[in-house]
Each structure stands twice: as C-alpha cells, then as structure tokens.
C-alpha cells in the first residue's frame, strides 16, 4: 500500500472511532479494565512468587540420626536423599561443625566461655543432613519418605509460610486467569460490536467504494485500524495507570512500613513492566486486530 493510501486509511479509522464515540469508549474502557486487572494480578502474583522464593531459600529440612547409627547407615541416608528430584542441595553437618556454629551463635565466638564444654561436645549426637528443596510443595512427601528411612531419629522442618504461600499463589493464578479470560471475551465482543456499528454507519460509503473499484483490503483497512487503535489505547492507558500505582505503593510501603521492607522486598518496577508492557500491548493490539478481522469476515461481504 502506498504511504498516502495508508495515511488516508489510518485517518478514516480514527474518524470511525470518533464518529462512533459511545461504542469506542465502551470498548476502550473494557480493554482498559482487562489489561489493568491483568497487571494487578500479575504484580501481586509476581511479588508473592518472589516472597515464596525468599522463603524457600530459608527452608531446610534437617535429618537427625539415631544415636547408634553407623557410618554406613548415615551414608545410605545421604544417597537416599540425593536420589530425590525435589532436593536442590544437601550437606552433611558433623557434630563438631554443629557445635562450632552453635558456639558462634550462642557465645558470640567467646572461646573462654565456650571452653567450659571443651572436651565434652554437648551436641555430640547432633550430626545431621541439611536439605534444601527446589520445590517447597514437595516438602511434605519428602519428610514422610525420610522419616521411614533406617537410622533416622528425627526430621526437622518448618511448614510455616511456605505451603500457605504456594497455595495462595496458585489460587491467585487461577482466579486471575479466569477473570482475564472473561474480560478478554467481553473486550473482543465489544470491539466486534463497535466495528459492526461502524460498518453499518458506512454502508453507503462502502457500497460506493466498491462500485468505483476499491480493493477489499482498502475497504477493510479503516476498520482494522479502528480495532487495533482501540486495542492500543485500551492497553496503553492501563499500563500508565499501573506504572503510577505500582510506584506509589512501593514508596508508600517503604515510608510507612519500614520494618516490613526488611522482611521482604517488592519486585522492582522495571522487572514487572519488562513483562507487562509487551504482554499488554500484544494482547490489546492482538484482540483489536483479530476482533476487527473476524467481524469484517462476517459482516463485510465484499
């Protein structure tokens, strides 16, 4: 297509939107709501995920042995652990190491105070394996498995936040998928309606165009422009809103809840929008494009 033709059709597409303000506005608003919610859900989801990941890093399952456990038994347990796929890493902590680490924590490295226990390691039977998981949701089954192994006295683990967080994260994902799917359908439907109205308003013009020798693509172009522009506007507006909102919340939390920021940190704006911008634009423009193409196929027999 020639540049002047392109700009003419582009202009006609914008004119369509303008002439058909109510429908266009409704479509843009739905699109905006759709992308906005997508952004909100994504932001929440990505932050929870980062929280879960932070929590995971601290999660370790500790396996303690029977007092009479033999070297071989302990080694066998180690092999059994390494065979599990959910295990990211595990390490053997000897009684001496445990004591050293305890001393560091408890006596603050005060050798003289600790010297009282010099020849009598109070943690003599606290040799252990520390296991780090790559998937917290597998923790329960791993613990059950470990408890059945020979020579295992006790399995320590924290089932605190981790499980709840994973469940919650999953719930958010499902809800957001559902809501977004519904909204996408509504947005596509509204764009299709807008285009249909545009076609009926321009019926005579289209008929004349065809009689003077317009190609199908030329007749369709303004409507495709219309759909794509609605999609584009409907995804840029929520992106701007989300950007402002996200930053506001970050500053607000940083100011008001100083203590909280030590506990966990928000995923930075840049990282969130690195995903959100392309996905929203593709979604908006894609729905606009497909919505208009589909409608033209049905209602514009050229």
């Amino acid at each position, binding site marked *: 297509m020639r540049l*002047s033709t392109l700009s003419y059709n582009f202009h006609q597409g914008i004119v369509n939107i303008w002439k058909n303000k109510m429908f266009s506005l409704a479509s843009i608003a739905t699109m905006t709501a759709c992308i906005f919610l997508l952004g909100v859900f994504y932001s929440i989801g990505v932050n929870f995920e980062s929280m879960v990941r932070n929590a995971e890093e601290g999660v370790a399952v500790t396996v303690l042995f029977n007092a009479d456990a033999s070297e071989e038994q302990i080694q066998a347990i180690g092999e059994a652990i390494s065979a599990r796929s959910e295990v990211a890493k595990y390490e053997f902590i000897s009684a001496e190491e445990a004591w050293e680490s305890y001393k560091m924590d408890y006596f603050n490295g005060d050798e003289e105070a600790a010297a009282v226990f010099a020849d009598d390691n109070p943690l003599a039977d606290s040799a252990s394996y520390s296991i780090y998981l790559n998937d917290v949701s597998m923790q329960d089954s791993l613990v059950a498995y470990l408890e059945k192994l020979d020579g295992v006295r006790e399995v320590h683990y924290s089932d605190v936040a981790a499980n709840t967080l994973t469940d919650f994260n999953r719930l958010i994902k499902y809800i957001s998928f559902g809501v977004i799917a519904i909204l996408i359908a509504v947005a596509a439907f509204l764009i299709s309606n807008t285009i249909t109205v545009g076609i009926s308003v321009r019926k*005579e*013009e289209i008929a*004349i165009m065809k*009689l003077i*020798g317009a190609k*199908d693509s030329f007749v369709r172009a303004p409507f495709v422009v219309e759909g794509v522009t609605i999609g584009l506007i409907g995804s840029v507006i929520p992106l701007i809103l989300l950007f402002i909102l996200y930053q506001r919340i970050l500053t607000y939390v940083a100011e008001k809840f100083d203590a909280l920021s030590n506990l966990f940190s928000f995923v930075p704006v840049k990282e969130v929008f690195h995903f959100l911008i392309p996905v929203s634009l593709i979604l908006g423009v894609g729905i606009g494009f497909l919505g208009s193409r589909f409608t033209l196929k049905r209602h514009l027999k050229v």
Partner: protein
Amino acid sequence: MIRLEHVSKTYEAGVQAVTDVSLHIAPGEFVFIVGDSGSGKSTLIKLLLKELNPTHGKIIVGGKDLEKINRRQIPRYRRNVGVVFQNFRLLQDRNVYENVAFAMRVVESPKKDIKRKVPTILSLVGLAAKYRALPRQLSGGEQQRVAIARALVNEPKILLADEPTGNLDNRNAWEIMKLLDEINQRGTTVVVVTHNMDFIKTMNKRVITIKKGVVVDDQGGEEI
C-alpha cells in the same frame, strides 16, 4: 466496447428482469436506454458493473468476458467503468473536492496525481469555484456534476448513467445531458438510462428500448 450475447437475469425471488438480450455498443458511442419502470434497465447497468452476474448468456466489456473475472479482479475491472446514479450517491460528510478525490484515493492514486487531476475535472464540470461546498449546500444539478466528476476522474473508457436526471428539473437536466454529450465527444463511451423523451427526440442518438426485460427497439445508431 460492450457486447451482450443472449443475456438473461432471473433474481433469486424468481423475477425475470432481463430476457435474452443481445446488443453491441461500439467504442465512443452514446446510447440511451429507455423503458417503463421495472423493465430491467437498472438490472442491465448492474450486470455491466458486475454487481450482478447473468443467469444465462455472455457479457464482454472492453474485450473482457465478465464471467472470467474473479472476485479479486473486480476492482481493476470497475476502474474502467464510471457510474452515475439518479440519487447522486455523494458522501454527505465530505466536500466537493473530497468527494471527487475519494474516487482516486479508493484506487490508491498517488497524492500528486490527486492534487493535479481533481481541480481539472472540477473545472470541466463547472464546479471549480464550489470545491469546498458540502453536497447539501449544492443544487441537485450541481450534486450530479460532482457525481459525474467522481465517475470521470479515473478516466474510465465507459460511463454508465442510471437516470442521471431523474431527480432534476428540466433546466438542470439539460445541463447534465449536455455535459454527458461533451464527455462523449472527448471519446468516452456513454450509456444513459432515461425516461425523458425530450432528450431522445432532440439529441438524435441511438435509443435502445426495453420492455419487460426484452429489447423491443434499437434505433439511430450509426453502426449496428
């Protein structure tokens, strides 16, 4: 230029609008088509524009068999056939210049050609001064001139006019008819559907008479 061989058209409703019409219109000819209301004149024009396809028979325009033109080739074909209607069919929201330029935009002409040709054609139809007026600000005769300018701006070899003066008073009707004659003098083949017996009597052109879809009379042509 235009050749019809045993052309019939039956609408889906079962109405037979055109029955076994055969005729030949030579390049550069000026032809009137007359007939009562419902005799099939508009149907004939639609067949020539390939807005409709004949149920039977063959239509050849400019050496092209219309049956062999597929959907994608229709736009190219129509660019060679200008058309004018009784009710003008102008775009009400665009001014005179834009209505004419529209025809060139539609066929994707370069901008500089549009800028050059639209004023030329507007002065040909005598509307150069009113190029910024909207259709509703013009008289019927003026509106029909805009429509003619629009039909001609792409330099078609054939101009079809379906009752172009049907909505005009006598004076305006004559102006339009003179304009069409002038266009014919410049070499365009012109086919005019009309009810106006004055034109037919005065202008001494070939007249094809249709009755209930059948050609019943064909007189006055120089070469048949």
